[in-house]
């Protein structure tokens, strides 16, 4: 299977306040490279401040990398061309309650990416919204509701609908499963796995929960202080953790694979 997303030597550093002739820099992300294939999931684990979210922001285009290149389907992604990137790489955030605009109905919310990125007629857009809502397990009539009328799990489904409505190839889940209740979380995991199978999506999962990482991902990157300290197939890394950070992480969750 061909490589979908290729990240080459991406790094990010921030300039800190300093004197003119000894400027200091803070390296949020040391050079990172990885590749993802279609229908595969890459998990990124690490502590707070290890650079996982910076990496996610760079991939989705919210930050520009200091150095490095991103290739999607072999094409170089320019850091300015949001149009192309918006359609192909989408992101879901942790707290779905605050990422939905409370003054818009679900239809208006889901309409926004369509009007900005496609040339569809109003009728077609409506049809597409209805279909996407049904795909994530809601009813088509839910599009006339406002976000506050939904429960937390349903809001997360709406965020997912907003992510998949443009038929993207990569979805970044930034702690998207952490704030959900256990029974809704397993529903969401099942839904995400089904969509991956149907639409051939690639996921980048950022998570703390090693149980979910084990179940959900094919490959894993362990990060610490902006550097990738361990990477490989999830099962192999978890069976035989080499680096101290990985071992500590697994210890702290009492996690052991036989």
């Amino acid at each position, binding site marked *: 299977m061909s490589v979908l997303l290729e990240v080459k030597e991406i790094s990010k550093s921030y300039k800190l306040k300093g004197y003119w002739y000894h400027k200091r820099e803070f390296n949020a992300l040391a050079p990172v490279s990885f590749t993802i294939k279609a229908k595969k999931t890459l998990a990124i684990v690490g502590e*707070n401040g290890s650079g996982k979210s910076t990496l996610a922001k760079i991939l989705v285009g919210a930050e520009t990398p200091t150095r490095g290149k991103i290739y999607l389907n072999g094409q170089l992604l320019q850091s300015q061309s949001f149009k192309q990137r918006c359609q192909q790489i989408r992101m879901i955030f942790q707290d779905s309650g605050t990422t939905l605009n409370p003054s818009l109905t679900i239809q208006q919310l889901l309409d926004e990416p369509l009007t900005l990125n496609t040339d569809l007629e109003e009728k077609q857009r409506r049809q597409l919204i209805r279909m996407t809502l049904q795909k994530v397990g809601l009813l088509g009539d839910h599009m006339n509701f406002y976000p506050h009328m939904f429960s937390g*799990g349903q809001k997360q489904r709406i965020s997912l609908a907003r992510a998949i409505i443009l038929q993207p190839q990569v979805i970044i889940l930034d702690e998207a499963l952490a704030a959900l209740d256990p*029974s809704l979380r397993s529903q969401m995991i099942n839904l995400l796995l089904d969509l991956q199978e149907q639409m051939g999506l690639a996921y980048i999962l950022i998570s703390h929960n090693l149980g979910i990482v084990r179940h959900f991902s094919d490959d894993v990157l362990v990060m610490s202080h902006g550097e990738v300290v361990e990477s490989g197939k999830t099962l192999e890394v978890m069976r035989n953790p080499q680096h101290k950070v990985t071992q500590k992480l697994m210890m702290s969750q009492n*996690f052991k*694979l036989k």
Partner: protein
Amino acid sequence: MNLLDIRNLSIELDTPNGRILAVDRVSLSIKEGEIRGLVGESGSGKSLLAQAIIGVLEDKWHVHADRFHWRGIDLLRLSIDERRTLLCRDIAMIFQEPMSCLDPTTLIGAQLSEAIDTSQLSGYFWQRNKQRKKEVIKLLHKVGIKNHSQCISSYPHQLTEAICQRVMIAIALAGRPMLLIADEPTAAMESTNQGQIFRLLANLNQLKNMSILLISHDLENITHWTNTITVMYSGQFVEAGTTEQIFNKPMHPYTRALVDSSTKANLQLPAKSRLMTLPGSIPILQHLPIGCRLGPRCPRAQQTCVSAPKVSNFHGHKVSCHFPILRETVKKQPLKDKPVKGTN
């Protein structure tokens, strides 16, 4: 001896459309020196129950109980003031977000010394200040903060979340409580810090014989630390028993679904296979189903489930269900493997 013994506690809420039964006849007992987990998803009334125990609910909530004993003393017979002084002395509580519970405008040292009661100090009034300071440092050492001088002279926003939670625990320990109620002490904390806080609580339990009521929304996170677990669902009692009973032989369909849906407990499942899950979502307070509130989502529901089930006791394993999953039926279903306790 039972430290806390609550039988059939109900909490009602006044709304414009009449009273709503938010917590429906829940029983809870805590023995001396045990860690009891209280598990329930959001809206299950676990925090309400904790607040009702220490009596900090607002006036719009009405609490009733058939029995409410604290170390053999019937609290229902006492006046409110007497009850408050008794509970203040013996029970302490720590809350979900330590950053928002500490006073942002006061130094940590001042907040800690405020919590130390004057009756704990001895000596003349001019010696009190010195003693107080010593006591504060001792408390900080107790919760594992070694760099006490820096911690005392800093504001909450200058410390990390894990340290703030430790300070909260120190404030709770100042009154030397017999029972500590920890309401999701590690929510929104990263896993290495979570482990630290849980280990600290476990140490306190071992060394000081302090009982702990550990409240959490996630069953898989706390099973490693608890002796016994009570499970609640949308205001109703579901199941109670030792951690092994709950985790290895769940009798209630809801607990079974919780255990089966946990990715940590089902390490034998192949990656990317479907997880067991209950259909539907958690009912909101305004539209609670009658009878057993799990009814509409329950795979074993039958007609009798429209009336609330009674609690039945199987060797100390209490379950509130008309059709509990007994061991024989589990064996008949080879698809649902007995979950291995893979976390240990």
